[in-house]
């Protein structure tokens, strides 16, 4: 039986490399555990580094479509890469199984039958944190994110749930790794809390700067995708007390998750991140679908198989909404010492249950 080709496009170099690497590792974990197979059919995973450059991603897409003729493309860490390639891939009949990026347009008007996002819609973590901030009754909150689409989505999502107008919104260039100026502004402004989104390497620089500026103790830091498995190993105790909203945490008490965390730590000697978890689920999803189709890659059949989402998610309850974006629960975690004395995410509370994203209505698919 000829192996099924799966294109895996992720950011494997530069400041954001950690995310892509986690996604790749988790994905490969599943493949290797099944002896190089998914759904009992051998798969050939073509890993590609988009370098976080749209035009590079574009060329990779061309290559995967025309040269490699892959039926499935997985991975895709960042929204801007997703936006640059999703249309090209889907209209070429390739099935996209997004492992992280879930930009609003693709959940709404531009949704496609062969575009699946296993992770979440970008706004959803933010919505969870917005709910938490509301419950806490914070009055003055400053939002701070990198100046790119995902950053803006995360602020939008937060504001959708947290109704009080934000005290301020700070957008920093994506390449900026020094936040002294902005943090001084915050220190002087003294808000009730700071809401921030800085993925990967940015997150390390940011949280550390926040702690060095002596703010962690004074002003609660509410984050999404900032203090997680990719950054905690580097942040260590400097992240203690940071709040983080997500659909997944290492201590979620479902068996699939306990197996995942154990296997991942065993193989890679580090705690997995939510990116790893999502990508792990993506692999499981593809596994389930291919098992249904017996390795058949006929688009229509495979789509229905995927849509069924017939697999045990490490995030517990999981199903696809009309727009092929997940319907799932969301939690808020706090960075605290775990049993081994390492700084790690500890569940604080479940904020949203079986939560749909805000754009499913705009999606023509029903």
């Amino acid at each position, binding site marked *: 039986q000829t192996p099924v080709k799966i294109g895996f496009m992720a950011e*494997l*170099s*530069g*400041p954001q*490399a*950690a995310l892509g*690497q986690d996604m790749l590792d988790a994905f490969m974990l599943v493949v290797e555990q099944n002896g190089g197979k998914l759904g009992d059919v051998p798969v050939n995973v073509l890993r590609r580094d988009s370098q976080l450059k749209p035009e590079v991603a574009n060329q990779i897409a061309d290559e995967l479509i025309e040269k490699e003729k892959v039926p499935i493309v997985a991975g895709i860490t960042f929204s801007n890469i997703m936006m640059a390639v999703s249309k090209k891939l889907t209209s070429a009949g390739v099935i996209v199984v997004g492992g992280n990026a879930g930009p609003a347009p693709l959940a709404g008007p531009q949704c496609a039958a062969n575009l699946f996002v296993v992770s979440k819609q970008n706004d959803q973590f933010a919505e969870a944190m917005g709910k938490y901030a509301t419950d806490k009754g914070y009055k003055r909150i400053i939002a701070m994110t990198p*100046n790119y689409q995902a950053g803006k989505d995360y602020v939008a999502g937060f504001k959708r749930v947290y109704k009080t107008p934000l005290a301020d*919104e*700070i*957008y*920093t*260039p994506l*390449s*900026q*790794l*020094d936040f*002294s*100026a*902005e943090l*001084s*502004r915050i*220190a*002087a402004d003294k808000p009730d809390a700071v809401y921030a989104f800085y993925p*990967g*390497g940015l997150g*390390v*620089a940011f949280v*550390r*700067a926040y702690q*060095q*500026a*002596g703010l962690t103790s004074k002003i609660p830091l509410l984050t999404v995708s900032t203090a997680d498995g990719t950054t905690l190993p*580097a942040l260590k105790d400097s992240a203690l007390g940071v709040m983080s909203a997500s659909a997944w945490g290492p201590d979620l008490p479902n068996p699939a998750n306990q197996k995942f965390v154990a296997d991942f730590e065993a193989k890679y000697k580090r705690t997995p991140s939510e990116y790893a978890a999502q990508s792990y689920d993506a692999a499981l999803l593809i596994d389930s679908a291919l098992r249904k189709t017996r390795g058949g890659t006929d688009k229509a059949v495979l789509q229905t198989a995927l849509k069924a989402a017939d697999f045990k998610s490490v995030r517990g309850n999981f199903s696809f909404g009309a727009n092929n974006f997940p319907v799932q629960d969301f939690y808020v975690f706090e960075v605290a010492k775990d049993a081994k004395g390492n700084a790690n995410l500890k569940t604080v509370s479940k904020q949203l249950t079986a939560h749909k994203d805000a754009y499913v209505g705009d999606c023509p698919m029903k």
Partner: protein
Amino acid sequence: MIWSLFFSQLLNGVQLGMLLFLLSAGLTLVFGIMNFINLAHGSFYMLGAYFAAAALARTDSFLLAGLAGIGGAMLLAFAIERLALRRLYTRDHLDQVLATLGLIMFFNETVRMVWGAQPVFTAQPAWLNGSLQLGDFSYPAYRLMIIVAGLLVAAGIHLLIHRTRVGMLVRASSTHPDTVAALGVNARLLNTLLFAVGAGLAALAGWLVGPIVSVQSGMGDNVLILALVVIVIGGIGSIRGAFYAALLVGLVDTMGRAYMPQITRQFFERSVADAAGPALASMLIYLFMALILAVKPAGLFPVRR
């Protein structure tokens, strides 16, 4: 309150300026004296950071790490100058650009091979954790240390250039290399050493920023552009120029990031301002440079020839 904020922003600007100065000093020396465009200067910054990070992981000593970072970069620079770059001194600037671009690629990729794609993180020494209370605002001790280091190096270079034999020779050979040689001084060796020192300064900067930003492949590229901006504004070959220009650029950039958004909000409605503000802030130093060059094409402190 407004003032204490302004003050700490000022400090932030100075601190960025000092880093830029450390970077530009070497660049401007090499460029001004050997008339050599070394785009790979940013690579030595990166290598310094990596070497330091590696050493820190082994020794846990911040200072030893610095020693390793600077020393390693200098040795490497020495070798490369001997093997390849010195052949390019008398050549067209574009050949130099081509060659050093090649070096950048090589170094960026090699560190990726050795240390992996993920950023390497280095912690700041415990004795510099926490922040100092200055009046009614506090400032991270580590950043203060960077400022101090920058000032010390500036003073050191100034003394070296203006008070010592070597400095005299360096200045002399910047205008009349042949005459210097004909008077019994090995100008070539002088060049090699100068090149190494330049690299060392870049590495020093790399070592110092390690704990603030994440150490990663390609971290030198954008910084290099900033350094070029600085030396052009300051006047190529002028250490003094580099110092003031670095401070200016640091302040302009920081102040822009700090106040541009509010300023833009005065003029545009919120959503437009939130988009325009950061962009304008990032544009600011380039606007600044364009203005200065348009008025003083030779920079603020042109070196007399």
